[in-house]
């Protein structure tokens, strides 16, 4: 390699380095701003990710994370050897799939129906009322469920009796999923409808004109104009929900649990809490949690790829 080539190569590199220096000198304040929040992300997000290494170790407090002996895949084997593992996975999947199936169409139907209504006062009232429960905390929603379904004082207990369902739904393992999912729909349908309302408002009005000229009925306008118009939004929401299938929250399931419905209400998140924090088996709990997160990430990647192939829409 000759000196001439070297010099030619060095020049742009040199220039880049100078540019970087100038950028730093001029915008040092921007970099300074980043220091604190980035430190937060590292400490509370990335160090915990690294701590997952204890899933592959036999962790004990005295030796610490790095001093504890390696255990290979023992913790994962221990989890899957336990017959409860498959119950947990099944409970988690069934609960979120049920939630997906029930919770996905309702906000779309609500938004499409609201979009047809011309009476502004009625429209606003329905929107405001259905939106409100979104802001009620999980603790309160579960308390309300316990009260309205209480066999002794609940006003819905009688209504259920009318439909031939008896007594205490909260103590019935088979009713757990329905209670969980439909109370979720009750709480979030109004909120989830907003994004579809926005998409509907963005549809080109000339499409409605065209449909009108063709003599399309209202139902056909919904089918041929509204639904294709909100399809990209539907796909994005769908990906996000499927990507969260395994990430179903701890908060509500834990509150709705009682010894009687545990056979269906114990999900991976609540189990991790129990063996990890109550049982102090950190390594096993971390292994279960890691398994859950990885499955979840894989699902999200698969759904996103498939959706991009099929519909051209994806998250990235």
């Amino acid at each position, binding site marked *: 390699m000759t000196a001439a080539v070297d010099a030619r190569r060095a020049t742009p590199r040199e220039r880049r380095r100078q540019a970087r220096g100038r950028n730093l000198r001029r915008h040092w304040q921007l970099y300074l701003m*980043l220091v604190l*929040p980035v430190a937060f992300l590292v400490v509370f997000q990335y160090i915990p990710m690294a701590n997952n290494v204890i899933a592959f170790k036999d962790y004990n407090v005295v030796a610490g994370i790095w001093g504890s002996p390696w255990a290979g895949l023992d913790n994962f084997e221990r989890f899957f050897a336990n017959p409860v593992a498959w119950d947990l996975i099944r409970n988690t999947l069934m609960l979120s799939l049920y939630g997906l199936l029930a919770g996905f169409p309702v906000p779309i139907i609500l938004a499409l129906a609201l979009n047809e209504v011309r009476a502004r006062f009625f429209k606003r009232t329905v929107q405001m009322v259905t939106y409100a429960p979104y802001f009620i905390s999980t603790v309160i929603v579960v308390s309300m469920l316990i009260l309205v379904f209480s066999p002794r004082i609940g006003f819905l207990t009688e209504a259920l009796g009318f439909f031939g369902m008896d007594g205490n739904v909260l103590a019935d393992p088979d009713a757990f999923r329905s209670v969980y999912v439909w109370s979720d729909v009750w709480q979030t349908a109004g909120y989830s409808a907003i994004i579809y309302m926005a998409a509907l408002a963005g549809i080109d009005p000339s499409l409605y004109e065209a449909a009108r000229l063709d003599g399309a009925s209202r139902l056909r306008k919904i089918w041929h104009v509204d639904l294709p118009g909100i399809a990209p939004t539907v796909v994005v929401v769908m990906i996000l929900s499927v990507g969260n299938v395994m990430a179903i929250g701890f908060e509500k399931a834990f509150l709705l649990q009682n010894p009687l419905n545990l056979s269906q209400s114990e999900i991976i998140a609540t189990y991790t809490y129990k063996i990890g924090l109550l049982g102090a088996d950190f390594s096993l709990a971390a292994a279960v949690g*890691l398994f859950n997160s990885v499955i979840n990430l894989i699902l999200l990647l698969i759904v996103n790829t498939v959706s991009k192939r099929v519909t051209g829409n994806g998250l990235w």
Partner: protein
Amino acid sequence: MTLQTANRAEPRTERRRPSRRRAARVQDTRGDRVFMVAVYLLLATFLLVVLIPLINILASSFSSPAAVSGGRVLLWPVDFTLIGYEAVLSNEAVLTGFGNSLFYTVVGTIVSIVLTVLIAYPLSRPELMGRKVFIGGVLFTMLFSGGLIPTYMVVRALGLLDTRWALILPTAIGAWQVLIAMTFFRSTIPSELYEAAQLDGTSDARFLWSVVLPLSKPLLAVIALMYGIGQWNSYFNALIYLRNEELYPLQLVLRDLLIVNNSGGTNLADQLAAEQMADLMKFSLIVVSTVPLMLVYPFVARHFNKGVMLGSVKG
């Protein structure tokens, strides 16, 4: 969908409405009218399904203990009285929890907003070197999280267990809010303003403080509400990080009073009056703890809508 379509969408609906209304009046066929009746019935059902449980709770909270325990309250108070509220508002644990939650919400929201602006603003600037890496680092936390136990270990190692900071610091930065703020800064602060400030020799920090932030009030309102409501409603971090009941936020106090003490209706307590009072208190407690949110609700709803629009921008 992009931010632009979301913004353009609103005025367009306004313009479209009159023409559609006229068209509908002329063209509604019989089938369409039947269809509209079905639509109104459907929406009325939605309305009632959401409203009736809320009204039942409210009516019960104003009823007498005996009426509540007898399951006699439906949609209107029976034997109207305020003793449920008197009992709740003189309960020490509830008051402490209320105060604590107020503290966590105010301080937590301030910390969160400061950190969110400090990270979102530099990331919105194209001059920043390594911008893509940083943004990727934020987005990745949405896809993958450390998990319960590994995070708990960090909080423990920092000595934050059983302190107020355990509820504020670990959840201080929300990736979603950073994304919303970043998009807002990028799309609403005109680059001409920045160029003018550059010519005047204004520093980046000064520009953020005296130009960007005053222009970003709607954004600050949205993310403050998101963080504030999240903090007010959460109980999970308190459950795992706190032992000292003096530090409990309201939601955890409510959990103890409303859920843990509940034995699923097979209560054999012999003090009938005490038991009836406990029933009534639950209803009053639900109302009292939800009222602060419902008071700010109309305001919150408007801003949250904006947040949903801002958030529907692809990063």
